[in-house]
């Protein structure tokens, strides 16, 4: 008996030991289409009504250990919602929200699913995918860009997959190799000026492809990894921050580039564009404002907030909201850079995700706390949360 207990204890211990690497791998992804909010969090992607936070749907209906979702879902103009998995299965999904069943969805547990798979039971089937794409070899860390009925989907395997928005069929695959022949891990959402599509890679490269012909127009190497995306300023130039602690400016036609602002820490998020100004933070907690017109920082000294900044700042009329790892959301005065805590975190949740705004609401997603999503009004007062009632 004691030996059996010993074995069970040992196996439990081993399981605990092995579970050391099964924690969160990324922070929740968040997006809105003006009516609904989409949250990618672990094994599920959820859709909530912006009005009251009621859940419209969740995908998949049953959790799968092979699927994990963290990148910001993309609401396409044709009504599809697109998101990819960072789990063992590297699948890109295009969900048709109108195909979800109305009312209570019947839950099917793992054992029932097994019985169904061997024909001993019948499980309800909901086919909500408009299409799926299984051609990638690595994680879908980046969100996709939808342009002219095409989906531009960068993958960590170093390929940009160009798919038909309606059918999901592969139009073209463009491989972005590094100088040593290794793949460029594409982690940032592509951005377009209408003529080009720009991509950034964790392997320190920035690419431009022609939006019509899909030919690579230029490739430039930086000295630091670029985990976030790039932004197009009002001057038409491309701006990207890197782990080399520099904001870099690129000529969109030639790719010629130069550093325009040095930072204290790694730049993780994509800069936010507001007229002639760019706002971005660094991992050391500093927030910067850069004027693209005169090529100078707007504030004499960058503000230091209380923790890491990985999120893109959210630009509002008079201020900029910045989420920090501590869970606090700061309001930065655009005019002079002074700041105050706009919404205090609960000391547990970490705010790595870029907040989004829609109508009168600001939505903030948290990692490792009781509620994953909170909708607050323009003054920072809580309106609803997910899970509800917390």
């Amino acid at each position, binding site marked *: 008996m004691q*030996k059996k207990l010993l074995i069970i204890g040992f*196996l439990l211990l*081993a399981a605990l030991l092995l579970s050391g*690497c099964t924690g969160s791998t990324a922070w929740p992804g968040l997006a809105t289409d003006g009516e609904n909010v989409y949250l990618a969090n672990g094994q599920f992607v959820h859709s909530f009504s912006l009005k009251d936070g009621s859940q419209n749907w969740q995908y998949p209906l049953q959790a799968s250990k092979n699927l994990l979702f963290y990148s910001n879902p993309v609401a396409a103009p044709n009504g599809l919602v697109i998101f990819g998995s960072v789990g063992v299965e590297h699948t890109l999904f295009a969900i048709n929200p109108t195909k979800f069943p109305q009312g209570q969805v019947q839950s099917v547990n793992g054992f029932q699913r097994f019985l169904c798979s061997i024909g001993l039971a019948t499980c309800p089937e909901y086919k909500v995918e408009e299409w799926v794409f299984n051609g990638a070899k690595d994680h879908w860390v980046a969100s996709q860009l939808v342009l002219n009925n095409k989906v531009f989907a960068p993958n960590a395997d170093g390929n940009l997959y160009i798919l038909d928005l309606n059918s999901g069929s592969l139009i073209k695959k463009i491989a972005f190799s590094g100088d040593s022949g290794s793949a460029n891990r594409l*982690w940032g959402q592509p951005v377009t000026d209408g003529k080009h599509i720009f991509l950034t890679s964790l*392997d320190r490269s920035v690419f431009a492809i022609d939006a019509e012909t899909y030919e690579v127009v230029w490739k430039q190497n930086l*000295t630091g990894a670029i985990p976030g995306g790039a932004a197009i300023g009002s001057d038409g130039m491309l701006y990207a921050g890197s782990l080399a602690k520099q904001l870099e400016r690129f000529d969109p036609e030639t790719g010629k580039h130069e550093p325009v602002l040095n930072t204290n820490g790694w730049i993780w998020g994509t800069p936010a564009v507001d007229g002639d100004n760019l706002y971005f933070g660094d991992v050391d907690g500093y927030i910067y404002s850069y004027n693209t017109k005169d090529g100078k920082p707007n504030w004499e000294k960058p503000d230091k907030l209380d923790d890491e900044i*990985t999120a893109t700042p959210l630009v509002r009329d008079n201020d900029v909201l910045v989420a920090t790892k501590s869970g606090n959301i700061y309001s930065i005065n655009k005019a002079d850079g002074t700041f105050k805590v706009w919404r205090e975190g609960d000391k547990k949740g970490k705010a790595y995700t870029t907040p989004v705004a829609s109508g009168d609401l600001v939505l903030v997603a948290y990692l490792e706390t009781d509620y994953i999503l909170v909708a607050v009004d323009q003054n920072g007062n809580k309106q609803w949360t997910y899970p509800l009632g917390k």
Partner: protein
Amino acid sequence: MKNPSNQPQAQQPQLPEGFSTESLKMIGVVAILVLAFMNFQVVIDFMITIMVFIYQIVGQNFGITIILFTILIRLITWPLNAQQMKGAKAMQDMQNDKEWQTIQKKYAKDREKLAQEQMRIYRERGINPFGSCLPTLIQFPILFALIPSITYAIGSYPLSVLKLSTSVLFQDITSLVPLNSKFLGMDLGLPERTLIFGLSIPVLALTVAITTYFQTKLTMPPSTGGANDQAAATNQMMTIYMPVMLYFFSVNYAAGLSVYFVTSNILSIVQYAMMGKVNWRNLLPGGQKSQDQKKK
């Protein structure tokens, strides 16, 4: 040297009654474990720092880094492993001891008396009942920290790259990130699959299972052949459970962890072989049984 005066010698500090040096050792180990788990992130940071240091020395190859790091961990824990083996051997010898077997039979229905007699034999023969488990316990913080350390260092996900930035001590790793996770044609950040005749085979995970099987089998102590030799049954179960468990883990998680498991298994066999504890007969079909029969 004799005491020159007639003054009494300074009295040695006495442990409270029922309090042995073993109890003190146990408290010491528990204290170390508690401190390590309270500052678990520090242990992880320290390990990642060492790995990044090795990574730079070996020309930015993370596969070789994992192998060298595993060797380093094995060397550090060598004395503990050796002590564990020694303790296990002493306990097993006691199972074979005639006097102990007689006592077991005699006090089969009096558990209290049996425990007293057991403690007496431990005392008389200088056996530490925790001799095999204390060294293992001390290694737990290392083992627990090892897997997250490798996972963060590989940096396949945003959070792991971000954690890497704050985990490496004493140096700026900007120019190193992302670490090169390619090794022998594999991406150490992804589960490994090799196309063989059009089939996607998890070769590395199978290697993990095979080396785990060999490691468990070869390091299994010889059966005592006793009627109540439950240890042999336990070990037999381990030779099945461990490879299966590690196979399923390796199939689903980063190949870098599988490289660690394979290296660790091979090093374990090497260590046992160097200490003359490897039972090669266990690999032969019916090898364990034939040893039992010889004893009988």
